[in-house]
């Protein structure tokens, strides 16, 4: 029982990082109805810049965090400009494939700058504490708190501000959003930047708790964010949170009881089952019609 609870705690902590990744992902998808495969690699570009700042400028955790977030936003805007902005309404698949091509590009650029397989990443806080029989890590608590705060923040932004109203209008109907005077292009770019910033925070916290960065991080971030987003429900903020936490817990339990090899398998079984039984995800509405027809991907 203690094992089970400790696994659950560990899972929730790891899941918090998935939730953060899914949060940025779902924001982009919600507003653009397009899949940005370069989401993880853009975060990695930020993380590599952060690592450079750490190695050459001896930047501390906060400095590295700032560089990582800023780098992720810049890389995200580059992706938006090249893969999404120029694409016409019906070219969702082309945009997705284009973002995949840029993924390859960003990954190789990162490897060119820092060619070794692993580099140290400054840890945020390595303190641990016992809560009764349970072991807690401070950096993971920070991650969980960040996930909750950012999810609440994004939710408040969407439902409580003028910018949020604009974003929800674009999600509802882009043409009508134009017609009521919303600058759709500007709002979309801002949403993209915001999502990349959330991803940057996620990337920083994950890497700080691993204390290292590898070129595999981009793919890892895209995959974990995508899985958590799909489990929770596309475009849903509570869904991103719950999807991430659920994925974390399922991974932690299966790692403990079934072994590391079956851990990833369990995650994909969960994803496949969720898609087949509840295609809209746990929190999403049923897929909308134009989406169902695969038009806008």
């Amino acid at each position, binding site marked *: 029982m203690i094992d089970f609870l400790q696994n659950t705690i560990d899972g929730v902590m790891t899941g918090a990082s998935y939730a953060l990744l899914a949060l940025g992902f779902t924001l982009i*998808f919600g507003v653009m109805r397009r*899949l940005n*495969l370069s989401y993880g690699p853009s975060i990695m570009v930020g993380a590599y810049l952060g690592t450079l700042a750490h190695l050459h400028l001896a930047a501390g955790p906060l400095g590295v965090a700032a560089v990582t977030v800023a780098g992720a936003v810049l890389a995200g805007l580059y992706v938006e400009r*090249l*893969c999404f902005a*120029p*694409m*016409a309404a*019906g*070219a969702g*698949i*082309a*945009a*997705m*494939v*284009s973002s*995949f*091509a*840029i*993924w*390859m*590009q*960003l*990954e*190789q*650029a990162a490897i*060119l700058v820092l060619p070794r397989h692993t580099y140290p990443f400054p840890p945020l806080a390595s303190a641990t504490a016992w809560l009764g029989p349970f072991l807690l890590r401070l950096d993971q608590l920070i991650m969980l708190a960040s996930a909750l705060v950012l999810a609440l923040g994004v939710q408040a932004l969407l439902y409580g501000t003028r910018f949020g109203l604009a974003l929800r209008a674009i999600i509802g109907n882009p043409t009508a959003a134009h017609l009521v005077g919303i600058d759709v292009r500007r709002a979309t770019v801002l949403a993209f930047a915001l999502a990349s910033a959330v991803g940057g925070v996620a990337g920083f916290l994950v890497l700080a708790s691993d204390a290292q960065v590898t070129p595999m991080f981009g*793919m890892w971030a895209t*995959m974990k964010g*995508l*899985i958590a987003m*799909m489990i929770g429900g*596309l475009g849903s903020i509570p869904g991103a949170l719950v999807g991430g936490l659920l994925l974390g817990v399922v991974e932690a339990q299966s790692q403990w009881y079934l072994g590391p*090899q*079956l851990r*990833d*398998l369990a995650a*994909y*079984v969960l*994803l*496949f089952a969720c*898609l*087949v039984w509840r*295609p809209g995800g746990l929190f999403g509405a049923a*897929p909308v019609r134009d*989406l*169902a*027809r*695969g*038009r*806008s*991907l």
Partner: protein
Amino acid sequence: MDDYLVGVLSNIGVVSFVALSAYLLLLTGAISFGQQAFFAIGAYAAGVATALWGWPLAAALALGAAVSAAAAAAVGLPTLRLHGLYFAVATLAFAEMVRLLFELARYQVEIDGELVGPNGADGFRGIRYIFEHDLGPLQFLALIYGLLAAVLIGFMLMERSRLGVALRMVGEDEVLASLNGIAVARLKILAAGLAGALAGLGGGLYAHLTTYVEPRMFDVMLGVHSLAYGLIGGLGTAFGPLVGVLIDIGLLESIRPLAGYRMIVFGGLVALLLIARPRGLLDEAAVHWLQRAWRPRRRP
């Protein structure tokens, strides 16, 4: 021809099968990130058939295609009502499940004092049919391209048949297609099965070409690449995916000096290409134009 060139051409030919597999589904409007699963299943099945059971190559390739087709049709069933991104991610999940299962799968038999067969994450060594039967690289290359040509002819015949029209109609609009009397569900399962068979055939060839396969070769990267080939080369004709593979593998292999920068150049070029031609180089309009230019003009 030197061995290097033969190797590159063989590679292009084999990968074209997965690209065509993803392209076939794209015609029906389905985006699959998971065709590498059937490539893997075909590779393992055909490899086991020759290396462990001593089957002839033709029978082994047929087995690979058949097993992959059956698996693809079986996955097609639960994912039938999924569309767009939901379908794409479901196929991705399935493909990763297959890959991880191959990492666990062990089936080894002692042959000539040596253990042969799938050995989990360490892969499956010793698929030596072409050496044991004195098939030279050129002969195998001919086999690959012979099969590829047959597949392409099949595609061309299909495009002109009722089946081809029905597939494109389903791709345009499923609801409309069903209103026109097309059995959408049956057609989608059929397309999934055919696409699975194509990938499986390619996989069988791949296993015998390289003599060695391991699960990590069949990861998401291969799946997304396969999908991208169709989009780069063009969705207007079955030659489109081939052009995509040729550009990626052919061009990149030929500019070796660029090694460290090739993805930077290539990624940027693909992104720019897709801005100019969102349905690829050989899109429907280009194919139409080429057909008109090809045929002698007739007076009305």
